[in-house]
């Protein structure tokens, strides 16, 4: 029998099953056909086992760097009804059970990515062998898509590595590398990838190692009902704390694993199938999968194809060693770009270095990097007070003070020192890229590259174009942003570009509410319960009041009355309130920067009127103008599509992922209702700030959604 997706061979009575057959893709997935072929292969193997013609099974991959990346996400999306999902999951269970029940030893040889369904398949084997390569990662990431491992993972993993380890893996969806996997007992042996198959033949018939005494005792304790109950109680508490109760999947996972831990395979898997089906149908999972596709979308560049002759971006430089400059220097150093870090005084350089160092130190503490790597990477930063060495730089990122006259002088200077091919970028958050480009002799190699603070935490990078930039440079920066593991969106020049423009009404509307007599705690609480990572008050503390005023004024100048800034924030800045940085913000903070109580002193300066307004109304007051502003941005062609907006707000503002993004959320609510609510606010609260865009009104008139479906 011939198969298209898997290579089946029988050698020396051992059945070899290779994934990635007839495929040139980088990643293998368990799609419908692969699953069916797997079923058919074992239809052949099972009788042969009875006849003693097959004595062992070895799974491996023909694709270097990938065993199986999981179940095809499109397969899940294609299943619509409850019955359809349930039957597909059950079919999967049947195939995996058949493999597990085979009375001969089975070994999975894993080199590279092994995720989701791939790992669940490996769990049906007697032994898992992995390569020691850095690419080898094992994970059950379903939770990130609002799902649970649906091919026996919730049942088999706890039995293999114990409940605490299994919960950790399944609830976080985090990656496990070879060494750690061996330590937790997920894999049996680690070999060089070239030796995997050869060793698998030997391992097939070696008896598994006995448990160490300590491990046996641990296992015995874990099997106690009360101990298990305690573990799940603790896990539940920690999940609720981390997700603030917004996410359904982790809780469902806990329930399924807890129920499954006390019963046999048949009912355990039945519970898993039911749980999976429920989650797969949920709005949340659909939203999270929607984001997954959005992120995949950011990886494709829609412009001209790659030309081979482009110079590789190897060496970077940062101008201005402030908080952002230091953060960007960290990013460059972490990505082997030995950056030059230039500023005009020594103190600033040391500040930039300490910024980078503190991020690296955290990685060292978490054991994500060794002290030696820290030394190497931190020392790869060359602090400098002059332009020596800029000749060798491929990419310059400017992060000096936000003043266009200053920036223009800097660029003029810079152009004398860098090579012809060097790309020059600005990390401005408020100055027009178009205007800045006028200061350059060769504007075609210049664009905006807007990072978010803190650089190591915030995945988003806005790539801002202007009229003279070359396509090649945009394409190069898109590829580079991905290469440094950030999420790029390409936007046009405009006030606040995309993300800050959408953020502005979120902040200014909060100040309006404050003036109307609401307390900042009320406002922040309402937004936290909407799912935002922080409320507008806390966010203003982080950004700095002066920076916020500066930014919103620039936007006001550009966009007019709709974005008029409120008096209160100006007054606060004048009174010396700048936020967290000078310890005069809405809240008090401890030395580690953790939020403590409210700052009563500031509270007194706010309105003493008291007013009552429901949490839902507060949310509407803040979210609706954001949606509205996003449609203005689409109307002004700042962003090409709603997906750009949603990637921007999720990865730049922390808009709650389970809501699928700002405009996906608008779709889910219904644009008719959004428009009606906006009009109501326009009539009742302010006829300027809530004035719906033409774009939105036309969409409603044409019965369109942001995402067709």
């Amino acid at each position: 029998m011939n198969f298209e997706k898997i290579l089946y061979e029988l050698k020396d009575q051992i059945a070899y099953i290779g994934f990635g057959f007839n495929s040139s893709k980088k990643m293998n997935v368990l799609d419908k056909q692969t699953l069916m072929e797997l079923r058919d292969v074992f239809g052949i193997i099972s009788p042969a086992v009875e006849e003693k013609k097959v004595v062992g099974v070895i799974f491996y991959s023909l694709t270097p760097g990938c065993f199986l990346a999981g179940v095809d996400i499109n397969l899940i999306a294609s299943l619509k009804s409850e019955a359809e999902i349930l039957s597909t999951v059950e079919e999967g269970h049947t195939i995996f059970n058949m493999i597990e029940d085979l009375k001969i030893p089975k070994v999975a040889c894993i080199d590279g990515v092994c995720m989701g369904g791939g790992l669940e398949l490996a769990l049906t084997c007697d032994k898992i062998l992995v390569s020691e390569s850095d690419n080898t990662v094992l994970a059950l990431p379903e939770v990130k898509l609002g799902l649970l491992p649906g091919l026996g993972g919730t049942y088999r993993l706890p039995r293999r590595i114990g409940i605490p380890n299994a919960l950790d893996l399944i609830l976080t969806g985090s990656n496990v590398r070879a060494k750690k996997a061996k330590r937790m007992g997920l894999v049996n042996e680690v070999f060089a990838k070239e030796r995997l198959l050869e060793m698998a033949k030997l391992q097939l018939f070696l008896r598994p190692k006995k448990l160490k005494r300590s491990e046996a005792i641990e296992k015995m304790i874990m099997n106690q009902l009360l101990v298990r109950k305690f573990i799940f109680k603790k896990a539940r508490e920690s999940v609720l704390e981390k997700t603030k109760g917004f996410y359904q999947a982790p809780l469902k996972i806990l329930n399924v694993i807890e129920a499954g831990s006390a019963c046999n395979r048949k009912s355990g898997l039945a519970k898993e199938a039911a749980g999976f089906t429920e989650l797969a149908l949920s709005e949340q999972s659909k939203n999270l999968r929607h984001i997954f596709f959005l992120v995949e979308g950011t990886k494709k560049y829609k412009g001209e194809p790659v030309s081979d002759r482009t110079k590789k971006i190897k060496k970077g430089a940062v101008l201005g060693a402030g908080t952002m400059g230091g953060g960007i220097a960290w990013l460059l150093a972490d990505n082997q770009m030995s950056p030059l870090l230039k500023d005009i005084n020594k103190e600033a350089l040391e500040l930039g270095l300490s910024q980078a160092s503190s991020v690296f130190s955290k990685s060292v503490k978490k054991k994500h990097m060794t002290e030696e790597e820290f030394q190497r990477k931190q020392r790869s930063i060359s602090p400098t007070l002059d332009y020596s060495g800029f000749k060798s730089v491929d990419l310059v990122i400017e992060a000096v003070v936000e003043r266009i006259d200053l920036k223009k002088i800097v660029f003029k200077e810079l152009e004398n020192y860098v090579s012809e091919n060097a790309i020059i970028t600005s990390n401005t958050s408020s100055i027009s890229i178009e205007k800045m480009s006028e200061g350059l002799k060769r504007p075609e190699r210049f664009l905006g590259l807007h990072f978010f603070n803190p650089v190591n935490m915030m995945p988003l990078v806005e790539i801002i174009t202007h009229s003279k930039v070359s396509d090649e440079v945009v394409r190069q920066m898109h590829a580079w942003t991905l290469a440094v593991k950030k999420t790029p969106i390409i936007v046009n020049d405009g006030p606040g570009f995309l993300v800050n423009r959408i953020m502005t009404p979120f902040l200014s509307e909060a100040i309006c509410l404050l003036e109307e007599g609401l307390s900042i705690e009320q406002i922040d609480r309402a937004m936290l319960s909407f799912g935002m990572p922080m409320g507008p008050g806390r966010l203003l503390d982080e950004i700095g009041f002066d920076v916020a005023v500066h930014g919103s004024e620039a936007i006001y100048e550009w966009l007019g009355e709709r974005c008029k800034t409120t008096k209160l924030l100006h007054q606060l800045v004048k009174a010396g309130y700048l936020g967290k940085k000078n310890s005069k913000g809405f809240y008090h903070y401890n030395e580690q920067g953790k939020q403590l109580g409210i700052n009563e002193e500031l509270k007194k300066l706010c309105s003493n009127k008291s007013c009552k307004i429901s949490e839902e109304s507060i949310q509407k007051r803040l979210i609706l103008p954001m949606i509205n502003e996003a449609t203005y941005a689409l109307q002004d062609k700042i962003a090409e599509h709603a997906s750009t907006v949603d990637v921007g707000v999720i990865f730049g503002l922390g808009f709650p992922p389970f809501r699928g993004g700002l405009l996906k959320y608008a779709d889910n609510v219904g644009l008719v209702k959004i428009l009606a609510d906006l009009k109501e606010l326009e009539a009742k609260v302010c006829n300027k700030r809530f004035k719906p865009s033409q774009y939105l009104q036309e969409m409603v008139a044409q019965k369109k959604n942001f995402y067709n479906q």
Partner: protein
Amino acid sequence: MNLNPVFIVEAKRTPQAKAGMELKDVQAPYLGHYLIRHIMDKLGLPNDVIDEVIFGCVGNPVDYPNIARVIGLEAGLHKKVPGCSVHRNCAAGMEALAQASIRIAAQRDHLIFAGGVESMSNIPLLFNKKMTKLFTDLFKAKTPAQKLSAMLTFRPSFLVPIVAIQKALTDPFANVNMGMTAEILARDFGITRMEQDEFANRSHHRAAQATQNGRFKDEIVPLIYGKKLDHILYEDKGFRADSTVEGLGKMKPFFDKKAGTVTVGNACPITDGGSCLLLASEEALKKYNLEPLAKIINWHFHGLEPERMGAGPILAMDGAFKRSGLKLSDMDLFEINEAFSAQVITVLRGMKEKKVADFFGIDTVWGEINEEILNPNGGGIALGHPVGSTGSRIIVTLLHELMKRKGRYGMASLCIGGGQGGAMIIENLKR
């Protein structure tokens, strides 16, 4: 064999700091790698055009058996660029330059990074022989009984460490501490305590003055330091601007404690630092459009009795003059490393006094070295002596000062533990 000229394209060094101070956490390779990277960036050279990396290091750290290779890789040079480490005690850095020069002169290589590094802060303590034997026995032991019997041999004295740095500063042949060699010279030639302290005092003041006037700015590349690597060292540390002869006079002799004249104050401190030069052939200058700063004219190494190693420069300079055909009066600047005041004073006398020259078997009295052109920015006593680096560090300092003075020829020389002297003459091309 036709010998080709050898050019210096760049010459840089780290700031220097006393061992155990600012640079104590900087591992030796990191005192060199960033100098190479700085020079590469500055010149805009592709990373694969270098032919060799040669570095000297005296207390070569156990983690980096061939430190030059590590420096080359850490600097981001292409992995195909080879590296070798050289050793000639205090002149290891000069030896690196000498070897690089020969290769370029012989047209085998065209671009070579040569220099030296030393982290004297990181020279380790070692287990003594008895403890090492115990470890070996334990390792060999198979049965618990054997293990136990090995362990029972333990005595508290096993824990007395060998201080590697002390060993390194003691001559293994003559069994004389370096400080004692200076003491011997002082006795031989009647050099007084006052003379030594005055010389040391001048070194401190010159170094302080030079630092204050930014005289070292062009040669120092600032270095990242500190536990968190968030501080930048721009200048040498350790010299004392407030030094006085009286103050130095109060210090007790360190080596001959009863009747000696050599104190910690008129000797160089142990120090951390690195230095690095890029040498090029004429062909490379043209090919990569590089502008040379100087030319290496000649050099000479010479041996003498280990217990009088401090006089080494007399013999080395004599040899360098003879090899180059130049005279003392041709020199516009001298950089003679100050290991000890007594030792430099001996050298100065050996150049001008027939009696001293005769003592060391030299047939030429070269003349007096004017103190205005000797170590005008201070020397080892104030700036320190990172042993692996000093041999090339004095060339870096010599070259930059020579350029500032628009002088032509400069001589760098130093005494070498083990009983040697080294000397090198360069010609400034940026006059």
